């Protein structure tokens, strides 16, 4: 595995428990990218090298379509999950925009004028509020499949039924669930390669309803006119290889590790967020009372453990998590939460090392 290989002279990679920020590349993805790097011609060119590149592109599209169970024509490749979310939220022909309060910033802020759907204490979208808000003009509604910070899974089938009945459309951000759960029922689904073992810089919008979508980035007419720009070919080939290599065999063990970890953390005084809801087996968000997240991050890093305080993109800003605030957590407690996220190569020992490190820090801070 890429983690802690002896050949990596740059840094001792230690224990990596930040898989929701990014996952290591699958070796198969790496191989596919190196092979596709030979196919560097522009897939829109009509000469032989261009057609070869186009062939690689379309094969990749078919592979991904097969894995996730959609029609290849429904896949629009983008520059990542954020662009996929932006394309859905801004490109869908609806004047009214709604997003859940716990959405990733890419969805939450895709449109300036949007209505916010409240969530309950576990971070689940309140369906009664959704139903009430849906009366009126039809909306495009953004609700994530599972939250990137808490791992809480949203009841998308129920939400979609309500939205459909009201003449609206649902965009589901499935960046954290692609490869872990079946694709959610939605009109548009966003996924990202680098969260599932592919390279960063590639994503896709799965558009089940193309009629209602128009390009937000016009250009050369690529991707059926819905996304301009030369396709990132080696990246897309890596995306497809990672998708083909996906397996869920590691997930039962991840579930067991999650349970054991959370039992230890609770016993030592930790607060687990979203504990009452169905969650991804790889994500735990835990608060350590009285210790700011930034202090914890430094302590864990010194112990050689990589975790995060909420989303990677916002952790540099040291803001309290909007997800926890929406769940009714107070600002102080929200600033004390750390996210542990695991993946297919995580071991029992990795998680035990984190648990011990957490307990030690907690003991030291209480003694101080």
């Amino acid at each position, binding site marked *: 595995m890429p983690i802690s290989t002896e050949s990596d002279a740059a840094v001792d990679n230690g224990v990596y428990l930040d898989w929701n920020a990014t996952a290591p590349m699958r070796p198969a993805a790496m191989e596919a990218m190196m092979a596709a790097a030979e196919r560097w011609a522009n897939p829109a060119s009509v000469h032989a090298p261009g057609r070869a590149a186009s062939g690689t592109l379309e094969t990749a599209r078919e592979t991904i379509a097969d894995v996730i169970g959609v029609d290849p024509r429904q896949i629009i490749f983008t520059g*990542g999950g954020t662009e996929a979310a932006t394309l859905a939220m801004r490109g869908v022909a609806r004047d009214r925009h709604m997003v859940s309060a716990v959405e990733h*910033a890419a969805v939450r802020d895709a449109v300036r004028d949007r209505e916010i759907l409240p969530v309950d204490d576990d971070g689940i979208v309140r369906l009664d509020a959704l139903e009430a808000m849906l009366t009126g003009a039809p909306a495009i509604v953004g609700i994530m499949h599972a939250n990137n910070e808490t791992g809480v899974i949203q009841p998308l089938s129920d939400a979609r039924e309500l939205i459909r009945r009201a003449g609206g459309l649902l965009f589901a951000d499935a960046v954290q669930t692609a490869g872990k759960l079946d694709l959610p029922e939605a009109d548009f689904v966003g996924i990202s390669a680098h969260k599932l073992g592919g390279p960063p*810089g590639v994503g896709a919008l799965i558009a089940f309803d193309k009629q209602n979508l128009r390009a937000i980035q016009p250009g050369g*007419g690529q991707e059926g006119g819905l996304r301009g720009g030369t396709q990132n070919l080696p990246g897309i080939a890596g995306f497809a290889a990672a998708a083909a290599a996906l397996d869920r065999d590691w997930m039962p063990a991840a579930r067991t590790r999650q349970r054991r970890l959370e039992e230890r953390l609770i016993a030592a005084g930790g607060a687990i967020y979203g504990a009452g809801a169905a969650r991804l087996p790889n994500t735990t968000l835990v608060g350590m009372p009285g210790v700011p997240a930034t202090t914890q991050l430094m302590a864990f890093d010194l112990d050689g453990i990589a975790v995060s305080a909420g989303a990677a993109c916002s952790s540099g800003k040291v803001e309290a998590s909007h997800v926890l605030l929406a769940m009714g957590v107070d600002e102080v407690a929200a600033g004390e939460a750390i996210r542990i996220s695991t993946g297919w190569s995580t071991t029992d020992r990795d998680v035990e090392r984190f648990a011990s490190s957490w307990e030690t820090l907690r003991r030291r801070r209480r003694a101080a």
Partner: protein
Amino acid sequence: MTIYLDYQASTPIDPAVLAAMKPLWETQFGNPHSEHRHGWQAHASVDIARQRLADLAGVTPDWVMFTSGATEANNLALKGVMQAAPSARRRLITVATEHSCVLESARWLEGQGFGLTILPVTPDGRIDMDQLDAALDEDVALVSVMAVNNEIGVIQDLVRIAARARDAGALVHSDAPQGFGRIPLDMAALGLDLMSISGHKIYGPKGIGALFVRPGTPLAPQMHGGGQEGGGLRSGTLAPPLIAGLGTAAMIAAAHMDEDAAHADALWDEMLAALPPDAIVNGSVEHRWRGNLNVRFPGTDGARLLSDLRRLSMSSGAACASAAGRKSHVLAALGLDRTDAAASLRIGWGRFTTLEEIQTAGAMIAETVAAQRRQAA
């Protein structure tokens, strides 16, 4: 074996670029926005690349905003500047020979109620300064002119264009994927406020580009989210391997600029010597990147030439337009009629093209042109 002569559509990845990208895919996979060693390591490689791009553009690293490519950079530049412009400045000036992503963004803005002036070009492909002067007024927010044309290789006089635009109080953007790394493009010396570039046109990877923006330039974000780039102006997890590849490509381009240009010039002479003497170069020969030969062979059909010359990977224009089967808007802007445009080919070469390849290709083209003319006679 085919000979690749379509360097304006895409360039081969330089092996050194691929080598620079590999470790970031394999072992240094951190998210550059994460607060731990994996993140910091990725962040450091992004910083190095940012500095390399800045060096090549003659600016400081805070000008560099990474995007998924030139199309995104152009969309952000045009829409971002216009949407953030003062209410008295609601007009955009661009040129008839721009890349389709610039023209489509411009027309999208027009549909949103902004003013749009599309300047024509002279038969040599350059804009007429008097026409620019006439179009410039106090209501213009942005002038967007490409540095080197993707279809005809013509180099615009950016220094003079930028000076006039700035005198009129407008911001200046240049779509420069075909020029960056090939000709000197010092943004400070040229007086540019924004410039778009792409990785895969300079022997770097696809899926990555950048928009250079003068710090403090008002710009409305086009993609919201984590706010990773440009102080919130562009969102989305950065792709450190692609960025490192782009940075390395820029560094190599800087080191090889004179050598690459001399090589392109030598191949230009060799190709022109091999072609029939009545071949006509489309666009200025003098103000041109000579790795691009857009040329017409009167009395021939370019589509048939391409099909008879399948061993040569060439094109009749922009790759995205040829996939869509569209006629070239650039050749039309030069004043070519349909017959002349249909008799034109775009032949492009670069760093990895050899003299032998050009000699072989030139002889093949000359022979095929002659054969087609014999049949027509």
